[in-house]
C-alpha cells in the first residue's frame, strides 16, 4: 500500500490529529481490555474480530496522517490477526502477551507523535520481528520459544538473564539520584524508612542536596526542595532497588546508574538499566541500552507509562464517557458555581412559594413563567452537579492489567471482579483514592492470596479472586477490596507489633488487631516477596483515606479471606432523599435506605423485651423514635400517631418514627465536617428550599446509637 503524507497534499491535518489520538487510544484500550479478559484462554471469533478491527482502524488512521512507524507495526499485527481469523495460524496463550506488547509499542509510537516523547526503536524492531516470527513459524511453537523474553519484558520488569533465572550474586555499585516530588513531606512519606530499606541491601552512602531558595522569607518548609545522591554497593538487582521506591517516586524521579565498571558519573560507558515497575518509563534515555552478556534483553514498558494523567478525559483508555474535547477548569471555580446555583434554586423556590399565594387566573402569565424558571433552574443544577462527578470505573479500569502482571510476577493465579463500576463520585475523591486502592490491591495479591499450591492444599481452587466493589450507601461511597485468600494472621500481627514497639495486647478484639497494620512502621512483609511494603506502608493508606474524611475497616477470617472497606463521604454529591419532620426540624432520609413508609395501627405495635416493635408481614422491627435519639421535642410520641419509615441498614431492618412525611427531593449533600464536626447519626446535611439546613440521616449510625442507648439504660 502506498501511503502518502497528507501534508504534502496541502491538507492541514493538524486539527484532526487530536481526534485520531483519542480514537487510537480507545482502540488500544479496547484491545487491551479484550486481551486481558481472555485470561490466557483462546479468543472466540467475535473477540478475535474485535481485536483485528481495532488494529485495522489504528492502521487506517495512522495511514491518513502518514505515521509510517505505526503503519508498519499495525500492519504486521493485522496480518497475524488475519491469519488467525482464517485459521491459518493456531492460537497459543503466549500470543496474548505478544499482542499486549504490540499494543504497548504502538502506544509508545502514538505518544511520540502526540507528545514528542521518545520512541525506542529497539522495542519497535523487537516486536516487529517477534510478530514476524510467529507468522512465519505458523504459530504456537515459535511463540513459546521466545516466551522467556517476552514474558519478562511484558511485565515491565527489569530483564533477567534467561539462562540464569536466579539472582545475580555479584556485587554492583550503583549511583542513585533521587529527586522527589515537592509534596513528598506532605504525603507523609518517611524517608528514614526508605533509606533504611536501601541499607538492608548493602553498603549505602547518602548525600542530600538542598536547592536553597534565594529568599528565606518566601520559603515553604513543607515543600521538599532536596534531592539525594546515593551510592549503593549491593548484589541486589536494579528492580529490587526500584521496588523500594515504588510508592515514593515516579520512575523519572529516580535514576539508577550501574557504575560497577568504575566509569565516571557522566555514565559514558556505564550500563543504563531501565526498569519500569508496572509500566513507567524513565525519561533519561540518553544512552541506548547495550545488550551485554549479563543482560541480553531490553525492557519495553507498559501502556500506562504514557497516560500521564489518567483521570483526564484525553488520557486514552481511561475514559468516563464519550470522546469529547475538554477544557480545564479550576475546582474552586466549580465549587463556587455549585454554591451559587444552589442559592439560585433556593431563590427560585422562594419565588414559587410567594407566587403560590397569588390568584392563578389573574396571574396566569406569571405562573407559567415561574414554572419555566423552575425547569430551567433544575436543569442548570443537574448540569452543574454532574461536572464534578465521575464514575469510579476510571479507577477500576487500571486494575485488570495490574492484577494480571502482578499475578504473573508472583506466580499466582488471580481473577479480578469489579462491581458497581458506574458508581459516581466526586472527581477530587477519585484522585485521592487511586493510590490507596492500588496499594491495597497489591498488598492483597502479595500477602493476602496464597500460591496455587497452597490454595489447593487448603482445599480451595487454585485461582484466587479479588473483588472490587463500589456502592453508594446513604451519604457515603463504599469501596470494598475483597479477597478469598488466607486472611490476616492474628498472631503474626501481634508479634510484629511487639517487635516494633507498637502497643498491643492479646486481649484485643480481632478488629483492633487488624487495625494494628495501620500503625506507622508496621509491615509483616517477608523480604523475598515484598513488593508493596517498602518505604510506604498501610499507615499512609489510612492517612490518605482519612484526609478525605474517609474511614477504613478490615474484616478477616483465617483461611477464608479478607475484606477491606473504604467508606468515603460524598461531600458534593446529590442524594435522593425523603424529607421528614420531627418537631420543628426537618431531616432527610436517603431513599436508598428506605424500604417503605407506613402509618401503623395499634394492633401491629407490640413490646418485646421492653422495646417497642412493629409487626410488618410477620417480621418484628424495632422502632427507633427519632425525637428520643436526638433529644428533641416532637409532636408525636406514639407510633400510631406518627409515621414509621422502614429502613434497611446493611441487612438490619428497623422502623424510624417521625412526626410526618414531607416530600421526596433530590438534595445536594453538604459537609458538616468542613466547619464543624461529624454529628452522630447523620452523614452530612443539606439546604432546603427555605434556606434552612436539614441533617441527612445515616441509617447505620442510627441503629448503632439506638443499640448503645439501650445498652446504657
Amino acid at each position: 500500500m502506498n501511503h502518502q503524507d497528507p501534508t504534502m497534499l496541502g491538507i492541514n491535518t493538524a486539527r484532526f490529529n487530536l481526534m485520531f489520538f483519542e480514537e487510537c487510544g480507545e482502540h488500544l484500550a479496547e484491545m487491551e481490555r479484550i486481551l486481558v479478559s481472555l485470561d490466557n484462554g483462546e479468543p472466540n471469533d467475535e473477540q478475535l474480530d474485535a481485536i483485528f478491527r481495532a488494529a485495522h482502524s489504528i492502521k487506517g488512521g495512522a495511514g491518513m496522517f502518514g505515521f509510517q512507524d505505526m503503519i508498519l507495526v499495525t500492519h504486521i499485527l493485522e496480518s497475524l490477526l488475519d491469519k488467525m481469523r482464517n485459521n491459518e495460524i493456531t492460537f497459543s496463550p503466549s500470543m496474548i502477551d505478544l499482542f499486549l506488547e504490540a499494543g504497548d509499542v504502538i502506544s509508545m509510537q502514538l505518544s511520540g507523535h502526540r507528545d514528542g516523547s521518545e520512541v525506542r526503536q529497539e522495542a519497535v524492531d523487537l516486536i516487529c520481528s517477534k510478530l514476524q516470527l510467529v507468522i512465519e513459524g505458523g504459530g504456537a511453537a515459535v511463540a513459546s520459544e521466545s516466551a522467556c523474553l517476552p514474558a519478562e519484558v511484558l511485565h515491565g520488569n527489569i530483564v533477567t538473564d534467561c539462562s540464569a533465572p536466579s539472582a545475580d550474586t555479584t556485587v554492583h555499585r550503583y549511583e542513585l539520584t533521587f529527586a522527589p516530588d515537592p509534596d513528598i513531606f506532605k504525603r507523609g512519606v518517611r524517608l528514614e524508612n526508605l533509606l533504611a530499606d536501601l541499607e538492608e541491601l548493602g553498603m549505602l552512602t547518602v548525600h542530600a542536596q538542598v536547592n536553597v531558595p534565594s529568599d528565606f522569607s518566601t520559603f515553604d518548609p513543607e515543600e521538599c526542595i532536596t534531592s539525594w545522591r546515593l551510592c549503593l554497593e549491593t548484589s541486589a538487582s536494579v528492580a529490587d532497588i526500584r521496588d523500594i521506591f515504588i510508592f515514593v517516586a515516579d520512575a523519572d524521579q529516580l535514576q539508577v546508574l550501574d557504575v560497577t565498571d568504575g566509569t565516571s558519573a557522566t555514565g559514558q560507558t556505564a550500563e543504563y538499566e531501565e526498569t519500569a515497575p508496572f509500566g513507567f518509563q524513565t525519561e533519561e534515555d540518553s544512552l541506548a541500552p547495550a545488550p551485554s552478556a549479563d543482560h541480553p534483553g531490553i525492557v519495553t514498558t507498559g501502556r500506562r507509562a504514557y497516560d500521564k494523567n489518567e483521570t483526564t478525559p484525553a488520557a486514552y483508555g481511561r475514559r468516563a464517557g464519550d470522546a469529547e474535547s475538554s477544557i480545564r477548569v479550576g475546582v474552586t471555580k466549580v465549587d463556587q458555581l455549585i454554591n451559587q446555583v444552589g442559592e439560585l434554586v433556593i431563590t427560585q423556590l422562594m419565588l414559587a412559594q410567594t407566587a403560590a399565594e397569588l390568584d392563578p387566573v389573574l396571574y396566569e402569565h406569571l405562573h407559567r413563567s415561574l414554572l419555566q424558571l423552575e425547569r430551567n433552574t433544575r436543569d442548570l443544577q443537574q448540569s452543574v452537579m454532574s461536572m464534578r462527578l465521575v464514575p469510579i470505573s476510571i479507577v477500576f479500569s487500571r486494575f485488570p492489567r495490574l492484577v494480571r502482571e502482578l499475578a504473573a510476577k508472583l506466580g499466582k493465579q488471580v481473577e479480578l471482579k469489579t462491581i458497581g463500576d458506574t458508581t459516581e463520585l466526586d472527581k477530587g475523591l477519585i484522585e485521592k483514592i487511586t493510590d490507596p486502592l492500588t496499594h491495597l490491591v497489591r498488598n492483597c495479591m502479595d500477602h493476602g492470596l496464597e500460591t496455587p499450591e497452597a490454595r489447593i492444599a487448603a482445599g480451595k481452587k487454585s485461582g484466587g479472586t479479588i473483588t472490587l466493589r463500589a456502592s453508594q450507601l446513604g451519604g457515603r461511597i463504599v469501596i470494598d477490596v475483597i479477597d478469598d485468600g488466607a486472611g490476616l494472621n492474628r498472631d503474626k500481627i501481634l508479634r510484629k507489633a511487639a517487635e516494633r514497639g507498637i502497643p498491643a495486647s492479646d486481649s484485643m478484639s480481632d478488629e483492633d488487631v487488624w487495625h494494628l497494620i495501620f500503625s506507622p512502621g508496621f509491615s509483616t512483609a517477608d523480604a523475598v516477596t515484598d513488593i508493596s511494603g517498602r518505604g510506604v506502608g498501610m499507615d499512609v493508606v489510612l492517612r490518605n483515606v482519612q484526609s478525605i474524611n474517609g474511614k477504613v475497616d478490615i474484616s478477616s477470617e483465617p483461611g477464608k479471606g479478607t475484606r477491606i472497606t473504604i467508606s468515603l463521604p460524598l461531600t458534593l454529591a446529590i442524594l435522593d432523599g425523603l424529607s421528614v419532620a420531627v418537631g420543628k426540624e426537618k431531616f432527610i432520609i436517603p431513599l436508598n435506605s428506605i424500604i417503605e413508609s407506613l402509618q401503623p395501627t395499634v394492633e401491629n405495635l407490640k413490646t418485646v423485651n421492653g422495646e417497642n416493635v412493629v409487626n410488618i408481614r410477620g417480621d418484628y422491627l424495632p422502632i427507633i423514635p427519632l425525637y428520643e435519639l436526638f433529644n428533641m421535642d416532637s409532636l408525636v410520641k406514639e407510633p400510631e400517631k406518627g409515621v414509621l419509615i422502614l429502613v434497611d441498614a446493611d441487612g438490619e431492618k428497623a422502623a424510624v418514627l417521625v412526626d410526618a412525611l414531607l416530600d421526596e427531593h433530590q438534595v445536594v449533600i453538604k459537609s458538616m465536617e468542613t466547619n464543624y464536626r461529624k454529628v452522630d447519626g447523620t452523614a452530612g446535611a443539606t439546604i432546603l428550599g427555605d434556606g434552612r439546613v436539614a441533617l441527612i440521616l445515616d441509617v447505620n449510625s442510627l441503629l448503632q446509637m439506638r443499640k448503645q442507648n439501650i445498652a446504657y439504660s
Partner: protein
Amino acid sequence: MDRNDVNRISLTGDLSMVGAKEHYQSLEQYAASQAEAVAAGRRENAPLEIDLTGVQELDACGCQLLAVFLNNLRLRGARDCSFKLNDAHRMKIHNLGFDDEILNGGHP
C-alpha cells in the same frame, strides 16, 4: 525557639513535617532580625551555636529546613557555627545525608 544569649539558638520540640511551619516562622524571624541588625551596622562577631538537644522529632523535612536556614545565615555573612546535639540526632542527620548541608557548613 529561644535565644538565651545573643549567640545561641536553641531549637526544641518537633522538628519534623509536623512542626516545620512553626519552626520556620521562628527561624525566619531570627533571620530577619539578623538582617536588620546587619543593615543597622550592628554585626555579630561572636560565633553562633545551634543547640538541638531539645529537639524531640527530627526528619528529612526538618533537616531541610535547618539546611535552608543555615545557608541563609551564611549568605548574610555569619561565620560557621557550632552545633550542640545528641548522638541520635547526629546519626539521623548522617543517615539522611545532611552532614554536608548542615554540619559541614555546606561544603562537601
